[in-house]
C-alpha cells in the first residue's frame, strides 16, 4: 500500500529533527522503526475487524506546511461554543491569532505543545507501556512518529477551570495532507476541568487527521472530556482518547462522530486505582456512504472501580456504523461494577450497524452488564405525533432527538445540548 510511503514518514521525522525545540525527537525516532515495519490494518487486524479502510488506502497523503491564517472562525466553530476560551490549530499548526486564551497564572497550563510537555508525555506513556499490547493501533504509532504539535493542558492541584475549547481546523489547504495532533492533558489531584475538543473541516476536502489525546486524571480529580468530530465530509479521521485514572478520580466522556467518509474514534481508559469511575457516552450519526466506527475499552485494573457506558448510533442512507466495546476486569479487580449499552437506529433500508461487546472478566465478585439493540423509528409513534399537528419531518426529528438525547443526559453543558440538537435537526432535514 502506498497511501503513505515509508520514505515520506522518514523524511518527516528527519525534518522535525533539524530543529527540535520541544525535544520530541527521541520519541518520534523510536516509533519510526515501528512504523516502517508496520502493516497497515485490514479487517484481519483484531482492532479493525469491523472497519474497511480500503477507501483510505486509495488516497495518497503527504505532510503539509503552513496555511494562511486569515480564515473566519465562524465557519469552523459552532456558534454555541464561541464564548468559551479556545486554543486553535489550523492544518496541523497552532494559531495564535485565532486562539482567545485569557492570560493564565501558574495554576494552569494551556498551550500548544512545548518543551515542558515532553516530560509529561513521557510519564503518561510510561503508564501506557503496560497496556500497549491491548491496543496495537498502527495509526497511534504513525501519530507518535509524525506529530509536531497539539494541545498541552495541565490543571494544577485543587484548581478548576470552566469549559475550554480546543479547536482543530482543516482548511482547503489541507487537501491530501496527513495532519497529526498529539494532545497531552494532566489533571492534578483534586482539580477539575471541562475540555471540548472540536475537529472541524471545510466541506469536500480529503485529508487524514490522526489525533490522540493522552490524559492522566490524578487522584480525586474530575474531567469532562467532550470530543466533537465534525471533519469534512470527504476527510478521514482516526483518533483516540487514552486515559489513565488514579484513585477516586472521575471521567465523563462524550464523543460525537458525524464527519468524514471514514472515521474511527476510540476512547480507552484504565481504572488503575480503587474508587475511580468513568462514564463513556457516545453518539454517531451517519449518512450517505459514511463509515463511522468506534472502539472503547475500559480496563478495570484495581478493585472497587465503576464504569458506565452508553453509545447510540443513528444511521441513514447507505451509512455504516460500528461499535466495539471492550471491558476488561483484571484478576484482582473485585467489586468492579460495569454497565455497557449500545443502541442503534436505522433510518433507511441501506444503513447498517454492528455492535460488538467484548467482555474479559477474570475476577469473580463483579457486576457487569451489557446490551445492544438495532431498531427503526416506530410508525405508531410517528402517527401519534403527526396526529397532534407535527409534520412528518418534525415528528421524525423529535423522535430522533429523543433517542439521541439520552447520551447527553449526564452532561450539564447546555451549549453542547443545543449544538447537538441543532445538528440533528439539520441532518434530519437533509437526509431523514
Amino acid at each position, binding site marked *: 500500500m502506498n497511501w503513505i510511503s515509508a520514505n515520506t514518514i522518514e523524511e518527516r521525522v528527519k525534518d522535525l529533527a533539524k530543529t527540535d525545540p520541544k525535544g520530541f525527537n527521541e520519541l518520534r525516532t523510536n516509533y519510526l522503526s515501528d512504523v516502517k515495519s508496520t502493516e497497515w490494518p485490514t479487517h484481519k487486524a483484531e482492532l479493525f475487524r469491523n472497519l474497511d479502510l480500503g477507501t483510505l488506502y486509495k488516497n495518497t497523503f503527504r505532510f503539509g506546511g503552513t496555511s494562511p491564517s486569515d480564515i473566519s472562525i465562524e465557519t469552523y466553530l459552532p456558534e454555541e461554543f464561541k464564548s468559551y476560551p479556545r486554543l486553535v490549530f489550523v492544518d496541523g499548526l497552532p494559531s495564535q491569532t485565532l486562539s482567545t486564551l485569557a492570560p493564565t497564572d501558574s495554576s494552569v497550563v494551556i498551550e500548544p505543545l512545548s518543551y515542558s510537555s515532553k516530560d509529561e508525555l513521557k510519564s503518561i506513556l510510561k503508564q501506557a507501556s503496560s497496556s500497549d499490547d491491548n491496543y496495537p493501533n498502527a495509526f497511534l504509532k504513525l501519530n507518535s512518529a509524525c506529530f509536531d504539535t497539539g494541545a498541552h493542558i495541565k490543571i494544577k492541584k485543587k484548581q478548576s477551570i470552566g469549559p475550554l475549547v480546543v479547536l482543530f481546523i482543516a482548511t482547503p489547504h489541507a487537501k491530501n495532507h496527513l495532519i497529526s495532533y498529539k494532545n497531552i492533558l494532566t489533571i492534578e489531584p483534586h482539580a477539575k476541568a471541562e475540555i471540548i475538543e472540536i475537529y472541524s473541516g471545510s466541506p469536500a476536502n480529503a485529508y487524514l487527521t490522526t489525533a490522540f489525546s493522552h490524559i492522566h486524571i490524578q487522584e480525586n480529580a474530575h474531567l469532562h472530556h467532550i470530543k466533537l468530530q465534525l471533519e469534512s465530509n470527504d476527510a478521514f479521521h482516526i483518533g483516540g482518547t487514552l486515559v489513565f485514572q488514579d484513585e477516586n478520580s472521575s471521567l465523563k466522556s462524550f464523543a460525537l462522530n458525524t464527519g468524514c467518509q471514514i472515521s474511527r474514534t476510540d476512547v480507552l481508559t484504565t481504572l488503575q486505582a480503587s474508587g475511580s469511575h468513568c462514564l463513556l457516552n457516545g453518539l454517531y450519526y451517519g449518512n450517505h456512504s459514511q463509515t463511522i466506527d468506534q472502539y472503547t475499552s475500559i480496563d478495570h485494573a484495581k478493585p472497587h472501580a465503576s464504569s458506565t457506558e452508553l453509545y447510540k448510533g443513528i444511521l441513514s442512507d447507505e451509512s455504516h456504523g460500528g461499535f466495539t466495546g471492550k471491558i476488561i476486569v483484571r484478576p484482582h479487580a473485585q467489586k468492579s461494577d460495569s454497565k455497557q449499552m449500545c443502541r442503534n437506529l436505522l433510518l433507511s433500508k441501506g444503513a447498517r450497524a454492528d455492535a460488538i461487546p467484548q467482555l474479559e472478566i477474570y475476577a469473580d465478585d463483579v457486576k457487569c452488564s451489557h446490551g445492544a439493540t438495532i431498531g427503526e423509528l*416506530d*410508525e*405508531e*409513534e410517528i*402517527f*401519534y*405525533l*403527526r*396526529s*397532534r*399537528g*407535527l*409534520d*412528518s419531518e*418534525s415528528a421524525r426529528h*423529535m*423522535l430522533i*432527538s*429523543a*433517542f439521541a*438525547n*439520552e447520551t447527553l443526559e449526564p452532561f450539564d453543558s447546555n451549549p453542547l445540548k443545543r449544538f447537538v440538537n441543532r445538528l440533528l435537526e439539520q441532518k434530519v432535514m437533509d437526509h431523514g
Partner: protein
Amino acid sequence: MLKVDNLHASIEGKEILKGLSFEVKAGEVHAIMGPNGSGKSTLSQVLAGREVYEVTQGSVTYQGKNLLEMSVEERAWAGIFLSFQYPVAIPGIRNSNFLRTAYNAIRKNRNLEELDAMDFLALLKEKAKLVEMDPKLLDRALNDGFSGGEKKRNEILQMALLEPTLAVLDETDSGLDIDALRVIAQGVNAMRNKERAMIVITHYQRLLDYIVPDFVHVLSKGKIIKSGGKDLALELETKGYGWLTNVSEGSIPLPIN
C-alpha cells in the same frame, strides 16, 4: 361538518369497515358503540389518517373537503383530534415540550401567533386544572410510566389545548376507575359547545352516563346497524349486543351436527 358515506377500509387486505355511513353536525355528540372487533378503533384511526389502513370505497367529507386526501397533520391543522385508546409513551421527549411543539405547530398552520415557553406554561397550567392533572406529569417524559388514568388525562389535556373542531374519543373510558372517569368526562363536557362536534367511541354504556350523547350508533361487523337517541345506549346496556347483531345477520346460528 363530517359526512361518512359507504366507507370501506381494510388492513393488510382484510376488510374491517364494510360500508359505514353517518353524518355529524356542529355541536353534536355522537356515540359509536359496538362489540370487540366491530371496527370501532379502525374507524377512529381512518378518520385520523393512519396510513396502514386502506380506504377501498366510499367517501369522508369534512367541512366540505375530501378528508381522505388530507395527510395526518393536515387533518390535525384542520381541527380533527383523536384521543387514543392506547397513547404511545416516548421516553426522551418531555411532556411539556411535546405539548408546546404540538400547540405551536397547530397555531402556526392556523396563522395564529406561536407562544413562547413562558406564556405557554401559564396556559398549560390552567388547562391541566381542567383534568385535575398532577403538574409533575408535565415535566416527565411523554406518557412514560404514566398510569392508564394519567395517560387519558394527558389526552384530554391535549384536546383542551388544541381546541379541535371535531374530537374523536376512542375508548376514553377503558382502564379508568370511576373517579378518573368522572374527572375526564367533566373535562370533555366543559369543551362541548355549538361549534365543536364529538364522536365518542365506546364499548360500554358507562361513559355515556357522564358524556351524554345526542345520537347513538351501533357498529357491528364494519357497518352501522342501528342508530337512535341516547336511550339506545341504555337499551344495549340491559339487552347486550346480541339482539341487534343477530337481527342484522338475518339468521339464527344453526346447531352443528
